[in-house]
């Protein structure tokens, strides 16, 4: 059983948008998207339950993303593949899904896992595009995953309750952050991760044409950034008669 986990290197805490390029500034230190730790954890649990398997961490990002892949290896994944190429900078959903699909075509995993969203706010839809490119089914918001006999049974949470979906492998699953409590990396895990294989690939290595990645391969553009949408008159009450302050607010807004 080969399990691929797609992870994202996200800027840590204080994200800013670069005024010149209008893109997220990724120059600072980054970290493993916390929602992806649920996907790594689930991959490890599937492997542990089956008693066999190869967990490969797949990512696309700047050189610094190698640390993010190592962070996933420290949790127990077996090896990593990082696509890092200046030509991939500025890739949108279409271009990113194209590059990741190329890596996954090479790897031929039985199961492809994603986290439910990126903590840097850049969306929650990648798996469906990747699955479509690979011609495999996908299930999102998974709160339970059982893999057995070449099939998966996935419980997914929707707005109106739980759905249970069954599909043959290969399958792409985006896990909910409610599916598990991810383990922490042990010191032993961190040390071991340094010696685990991490392959770094360029777009050329994958046979992806420069016109198919980065801004050239993208079909969405950022045109500009406007000042914050005004939540006009936001107020804070820390002392005094809080209940009265709420009544005053409601009266002012004609809500009572």
């Amino acid at each position, binding site marked *: 059983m080969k399990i691929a986990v797609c992870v994202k290197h996200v800027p840590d805490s204080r994200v*800013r*948008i670069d005024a010149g390029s209008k893109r997220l500034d990724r120059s600072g230190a980054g970290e493993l998207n916390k929602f992806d730790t649920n996907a790594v954890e689930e991959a490890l649990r599937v492997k542990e339950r089956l008693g066999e398997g190869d967990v490969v961490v797949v990512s696309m990002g700047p050189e610094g993303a190698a640390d993010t892949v190592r962070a996933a290896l420290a949790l127990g994944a077996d090896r990593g593949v990082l696509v890092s190429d200046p030509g991939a900078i500025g890739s949108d*959903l*279409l271009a990113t899904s194209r590059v990741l699909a190329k890596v996954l075509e090479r790897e031929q995993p039985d199961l492809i896992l994603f986290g*439910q969203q990126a*903590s840097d*706010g850049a*969306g*929650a*839809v990648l*798996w*469906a*595009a990747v699955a*479509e*490119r690979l*011609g*495999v*089914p*996908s*299930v999102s*918001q998974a709160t339970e995953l059982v893999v057995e006999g070449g099939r998966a049974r996935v419980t*997914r949470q*929707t707005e*109106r*309750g*739980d*759905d*249970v*979906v*069954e*599909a*043959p492998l290969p*399958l792409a699953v985006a896990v909910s952050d*409610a599916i598990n409590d991810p383990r922490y990396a042990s010191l032993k895990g961190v040390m071991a991760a340094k010696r685990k294989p991490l392959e770094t690939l360029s777009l050329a290595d994958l046979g992806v044409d420069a016109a198919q990645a980065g801004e050239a391969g*993208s*079909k*969405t*553009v*950022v045109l*500009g*950034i*406007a*000042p*914050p*949408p005004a939540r006009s008159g*936001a*107020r*804070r009450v*820390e002392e005094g*008669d*809080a*209940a*009265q*302050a*709420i*009544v005053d*607010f*409601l009266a002012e807004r004609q*809500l*009572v």
Partner: protein
Amino acid sequence: MSAVVFLEHDGGELHKAPLGVLARAADLFGSADAVVVGSQATALAAEAGRFGAAVVHVADDPALDPALPAPRVDVLETVVRQGGYDTVLFSNSVLAADVAAGLAARLEAGLNWDLVDLEQRDGELVGKRPALGDSVLVDVGWRGTPRLALFRPGSFDAVETGGVAEVRPVAAALAPHSTRAILVDHRHQPDEGPKLEDAEVIVSGGMGLGAPEHFALAEELASVLGGVVGATRAAVYAGWYPASAQIGQTGKTVSPRLYVALGISGAVQHKVGMQGSKAVVAVNKDPNAPIFEFSDLAVVGDVHVIVPRLVELLRARKGS
């Protein structure tokens, strides 16, 4: 420009949020069409017309009833190719997000998501997307067509135009991988009590209430404000409140005139479900609770002290 909007439905009713997108599209483009999928599609086409759809493409097939994304990608691909649409619009949901992203890859089309508005500028479409915890508003565009967009639910109000739609059946061939996933069980919670989605006032409780019985505070405040009670995923998972009251990414998406958050930290999961609220009042004893970043009135304090007094004040006000 020609736009088509993906409409969702359940229990024999079209969802309001995509009808809001339809209203915005009709306003922006002069006219907008719709797609309805599943065995009730034809029956619902008239309702779509009443909410402003000029043409409703219906894929009326019980095989499409399970809420799975891949067959819907096949239907939309057929509609977009045959209808020559250059713009395809969705209101975000667990299902719609997967359909939109699958369609983007299928059509090699640009997808912008989490939009709160759409406008035309010099003949080009421009989407508005809040970013970085809603601290900035980003203008986004598309290169080429078709253009795909996912909107935050509650971005637009549905408008009943009383129109009559032309109904066109769609016969879409399903891709081989579209039928591999099957829905084997469906544990949907029946809605209890008044509908959260239509409520003008919602009072929600989270783990900060401290114990399940303290949801009585939320109920009492909701009652005096004429509102409905909601809950966070954590509170629902803890068994403190029924799942039908859950607000958030995997719960209900609401956009009331007033949203009162009691003991709710404001995780992204929850925020996604209530960020369309017109006014937000939050009470939390943690001064750094993320909910305060998107509250109009941030009250740092103990819900158990503040809420009973608030109820008393509101009752006195009503009585006077």
